[in-house]
């Protein structure tokens, strides 16, 4: 049954077969997209018409490759910018939240922690619409009553950032908090008894200890933001992020350039995974 116990061959091989089938199920869509990105055809699916790099580089009337498609490149760039800002902001606030909930005692801490975790169980759609409605209400109120027109309260880049930030901070808080639980408090106390102020102790002792967790939380927040659809769709303005652009293309005008973009994403993520393996081997 487990490593140390003997098993009948039938049990062992059925189990292995199941696992193999599971992993085939897992990688099948990714393999298919990647292979068909190089298909010399105008249709997204089979038949295979031969190898071609057209859907990456072509710039002809009937074929617009990824690197020639300016709209697509623009939406990729928008996504990168958004993800970068979101990851940056949520790394800061998420780390602060982890410090607050791990190191401080105060009234209503339980309630506040519950609120900080709530994005885990609130569907992304709901977060999207509630932020859309309230920012519109706030925008109209400011405009009518005070004559202030705040552009970032209307759907667009900053509203997307705000919406994604609202739940990415939770993930950062959990990742950094998990590492903070392993932190030896006496280190901070030593710094304090050596006359560091509390803020200096946090900056010079605690934060360096948390650095690996903060970096990986930054990467996680970046990736979550980069692939988010459910919340973003309500908050997006005239410049779509990549998932929004992909969605409307799949829905209305799919060409194999979608396979090419998808292949690039698969490649990029696999690369991060490989780097991750190499890094953990070194440790």
């Amino acid at each position: 049954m487990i490593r140390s116990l003997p098993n009948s061959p039938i049990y062992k091989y059925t189990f292995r077969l199941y696992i193999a089938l599971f992993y085939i199920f897992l990688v099948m869509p990714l393999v298919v997209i990647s292979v068909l990105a190089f298909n010399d055809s105008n249709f997204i699916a089979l038949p295979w018409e031969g190898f071609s790099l057209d859907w990456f580089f072509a710039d002809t009337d009937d074929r617009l490759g990824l690197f020639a498609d300016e709209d697509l490149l623009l939406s990729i760039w928008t996504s990168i910018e958004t993800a970068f800002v979101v990851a940056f902001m949520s790394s800061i606030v998420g780390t602060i939240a982890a410090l607050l909930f791990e190191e401080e005692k105060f009234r209503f801490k339980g309630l506040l922690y519950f609120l900080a975790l709530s994005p885990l169980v609130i569907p992304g759609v709901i977060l999207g619409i509630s932020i859309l409605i309230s920012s519109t209400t706030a925008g109209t109120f400011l405009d009518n009553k005070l004559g202030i027109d705040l552009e970032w309260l209307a759907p667009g880049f900053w509203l997307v950032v705000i919406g994604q930030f609202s739940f990415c901070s939770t993930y950062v808080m959990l990742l950094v908090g998990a590492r903070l639980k392993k932190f030896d408090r006496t280190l901070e106390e030593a710094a304090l008894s050596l006359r560091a102020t509390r803020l200096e102790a946090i900056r010079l002792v605690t934060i360096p200890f948390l650095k690996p967790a903060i970096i990986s939380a930054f990467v996680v927040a970046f990736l979550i933001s980069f692939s988010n659809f459910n919340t973003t769709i309500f908050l997006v303005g005239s410049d779509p992020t990549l998932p929004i652009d992909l969605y409307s293309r799949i829905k209305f005008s799919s060409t194999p350039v979608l396979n090419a973009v998808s292949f690039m994403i698969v490649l990029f993520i696999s690369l991060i995974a490989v780097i991750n393996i190499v890094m953990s081997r070194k440790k």
Partner: protein
Amino acid sequence: MKKSKYVFYVLLVPVLLWLITLIVLPHIELFLSSFRFETDEGEKIISLANYMAFFSDEIYWRTFLNTAVYSISITFLAFLVTFPVAFYISKVVAKKYSSFLTLLLLIPIWIGELVTIYGWMILLGDNGVINNFLISIGLIDTPIEMLYTDFSMTIGLLYMSMLFMIVPIVSTLESLDDSLIEAASDLGASKWTIFTKIIIPHSMPGITSGGIIVFMLVIGDYVAPNLLGGKSSLWFTEQIYNKFLATFNWNEGAAFGFLLLILSSAIIWLALRASGQKLERVGS
């Protein structure tokens, strides 16, 4: 340890700003606007009309119930499909491979739903890879209709959510001491007894957290039902999207959103109650 008060406020203020302006106030506003209604004369009133619209039109509440039942079923299906894999990774395969197998599970998660769902569209279409394969080996003559059915929608929802089930189960199983299983086996317990009396009870916290995350992702999903589902496979989130992005009836959309929030919270609360767990555990 002596703690200066001002550091506490330096930590508290950003967190309060985040939670109050982006979590609490937006949901209060969602709740309030679900009662706002504009009459035919253009008069803005407070009423239950938005909720009445939901209960009086059969298609809405049927979709609502359908989505709830479907989401619960997919959560169970995800458990059945992934539990053997989690068990294999944590208890069966040689230790040096287990981190590699876990990493492989994370790749589709990070690639994102849109790309993987698009992959399934190519696989399942009439002209897709699976149909082509089945025809070429002579098993079928004409393509089987798989895309735009409940079947393809189920595959998509399962695929995009099930991996969130494995990771928490693997981590609870890793904390299960092998010697407990060995002892039970030495004392003559059958595999089934070991499974139901030791393994399942021990991994219950992981199953609950995984189940809650899967359920939440499935019930709130839009991409898989919309891109893979057929005309008859309606998902409640699609109704909300339509209210906001097609008919621009935001107040009714807010009411629908609020109902979805109540539904998912209620089911998650029941799951937590039934398994005696706290929300704090779900996060870890």
